[in-house]
């Protein structure tokens, strides 16, 4: 239940777009960590793939000076989340301990209002009961709920890892254990373009980047959602040639 721990944290993420190669390892890592079901070709084609995270690929320039622009897009864990107040059943609430946006599956009745109201389109919906044929269901992560038909789901910042880390830190009396936790996408990212950490922690490596990087920006800042994800993209200190 919503007890406030002594030291609430604010988990955040920094995604360096200069480093992102668009390889999609984070997408798969997220799926395998969070028991995200595959939906098949037809459903993906119709925009029903259950991607908690996806890499947006736009193009810039004209041939031959053409190139992709990759933006990993996931739930921004907004400080003022548009999805939260519109939920009639408190299925989308803010967590005090982690300062993230929770989705409570068993409270969700499937109005899908939150998904409409998410400017990042970070939410996906279980349109059907997706069944994983045995024995493939053996790999399901026991720490993560398997969602049933008719509920909304989205990136959780791997909240099960955060909770595990907090419990470990509490039981072993070593708060630093909690600082080592990372999300599945950040863990997999081959270029470390995705960095995860505690923004309340003075020593957190991402805190400076999050708050003060000259390259930093947040997506749709103008909407006042106060995302917990800062993106970095070359700006004033854009070194190198050209």
């Amino acid at each position, binding site marked *: 239940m*919503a007890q406030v721990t002594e030291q609430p944290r604010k988990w955040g993420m920094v995604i360096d777009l200069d480093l992102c190669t668009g390889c999609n390892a984070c997408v798969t890592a997220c799926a395998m960590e969070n028991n995200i079901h595959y939906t098949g070709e037809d459903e993906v084609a119709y925009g029903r793939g259950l991607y908690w995270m996806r890499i947006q690929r736009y193009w810039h320039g004209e041939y031959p000076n053409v190139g992709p622009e990759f933006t990993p897009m996931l739930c921004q864990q907004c400080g003022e*989340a*548009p*999805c*939260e107040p519109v939920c009639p059943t*408190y299925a*989308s*609430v*803010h967590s005090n301990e982690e300062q993230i946006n929770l989705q409570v599956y068993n409270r969700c009745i499937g109005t899908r209002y939150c998904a409409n109201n998410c400017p990042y389109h970070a939410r996906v919906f279980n349109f059907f009961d997706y069944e994983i044929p045995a024995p493939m269901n053996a790999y399901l992560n026991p720490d993560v709920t398997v969602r049933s038909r008719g509920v909304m789901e989205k990136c959780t910042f791997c909240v099960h890892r955060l909770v595990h880390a907090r419990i470990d830190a509490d039981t072993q009396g070593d708060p630093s254990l909690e600082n080592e936790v990372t999300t599945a996408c950040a863990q997999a990212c081959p270029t470390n373009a995705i960095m995860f950490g505690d923004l309340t922690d003075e020593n957190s490596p991402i805190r400076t980047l999050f708050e003060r990087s000259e390259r930093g920006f947040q997506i749709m800042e103008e909407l006042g959602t106060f995302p917990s994800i800062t993106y970095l993209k070359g700006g004033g200190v854009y070194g190198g040639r050209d």
Partner: protein
Amino acid sequence: MITEPIHLALFEEDQINEAAEAISILRSQGVPDRNISVISGVPLSEHILGRPMSWSRVGLIGLVGAVAGFLAALAITYLPVLIYPLNVGRMPVFPIPTTLVVVFELTMLGLLISTLLGVFVETITPSYGPHGYDPRIAHGKIGILFTCPPEVDCESYDQLVALGAELTHNLQERKLWP
């Protein structure tokens, strides 16, 4: 309750003037207003018939309902979040603008439901005045039901008949509801 026999003077639908006249005749003969009641197929206001204002508590009941709805709205918006505060979208736990919507709806709901209840309760509450009914009322006729002391009988009947009334004596009280 009235135990005296009930009489009914029935006028045609366009004989409103005559009906009003009949009431004043009855009154002049010493039939008190509470022993007279007018039944009609269209609403005829007391002023038209020269009758004392009838009263109804429907408005008051409605008001009580509105207050109850208002309080219920406050209770369901305020109490649960006090017990179990949840943060959504960094809104206050008890935001006044959104509460106003709920308060408005439930106040209106309370008002309107209790108005119906008021109508219902007042309708099934036993009432004074002569009871009795004639289905021809629904044809637009105007009926004057009255009971009167035995000493004034004959005279009044003649005068009423002279006005064009169709008289029925010793009307049997019919149970119309439930």
